[in-house]
């Protein structure tokens, strides 16, 4: 006279995984389809502001600073300001057939040499001609970030 049979009391049961697998398949497919496979990255820079107002405190010896100027002709000029101002021109690399290219390896080498001589120097300012395309500025920033921890973008 038992109301519950032996089969109903059986605790051994299996979860039906088929609908879970269905959901997972749909979710994974959705995520893969909506995913962007472009690998984006960022370059941290800061804005260098210049004012025409004269500074109240004038130090006897200004700290050294490095400026990198980019020209549309693909020429680069590295200017080291300090006790002695030095201008280092880096000419564009002109292949036998083709357009002139930036000599970024030389730029990297020049900044590395300056950094070796002045280890306290931790930043570099980039200036560029107004018509220069942004992609070239980014390439220069990328190159400088390998040597200098902080890059300022100037006029």
């Amino acid at each position, binding site marked *: 006279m038992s109301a519950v049979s032996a089969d109903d009391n059986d605790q051994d049961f299996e979860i039906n*995984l*088929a609908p*879970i*697998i269905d959901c*997972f*398949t749909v*979710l*994974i497919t959705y*995520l*893969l389809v909506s*995913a*962007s496979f*472009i*690998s*984006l*990255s*960022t*370059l*941290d*820079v*800061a*804005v260098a*502001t*210049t*004012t*025409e*107002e004269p500074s109240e405190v004038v130090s006897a010896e200004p700290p050294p600073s490095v400026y990198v100027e980019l020209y549309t002709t693909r020429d680069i000029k590295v200017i080291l300001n300090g006790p002695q101002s030095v201008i280092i021109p880096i000419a564009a690399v002109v292949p036998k057939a083709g357009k002139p290219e930036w000599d970024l390896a030389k730029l990297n080498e020049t900044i590395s040499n300056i950094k070796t001589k002045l280890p306290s120097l931790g930043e570099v300012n980039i200036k*560029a*001609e*107004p*018509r*220069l*395309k*942004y*992609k070239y*500025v*980014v*390439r220069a*920033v*990328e190159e400088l*970030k390998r040597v200098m921890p902080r890059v300022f*973008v100037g*006029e």
Partner: protein
Amino acid sequence: MRSKVLKRFLSSDDQKEEMALQITSMADIFTIILIFLLKTFATGITTITPSQGMVLPQVVRMNQSQMKEAVKIEILPETILLDTKPVLRVHNFEIAPEQLGESKTALVNPVSFTIIEALVKVRATAAAGHSTTHVVVLAHEDAPYSTVRTVMNSAASAGYGDLQLVVVGSD
């Protein structure tokens, strides 16, 4: 001899059993894939979606700098967007001269007061304690430096001095 082997094979118990797909292991694999995908999308820079027509500059080696909570500025050939909303019309990347001015903090650098106003509004609407000085800049690779510089100056004048230039890694 051959018929004996065939007879034994056909009479084996294995052949009588119903084939059941073992989906437990499949569920395990799917769970791991799903967690991996969700985690990748939640933490990566993939949350940034460039607008249509945007061609970002490429870099040779990827920089591993962490993406911060920031306001997004996009420079496109015909418009400048702030958090996907258009703030300034440009013509072939050129900002109209009447749109340009000179800021108090950066006297010799041109700025756009329209962009400054929009950024100040964003800063004002941001919850207290969540204000940031970071701006993510997505500029078209062919944009002239003068336009990018004007946008950067405007951001700096509005109190956003730390910039993150979004680029595409080629490796």
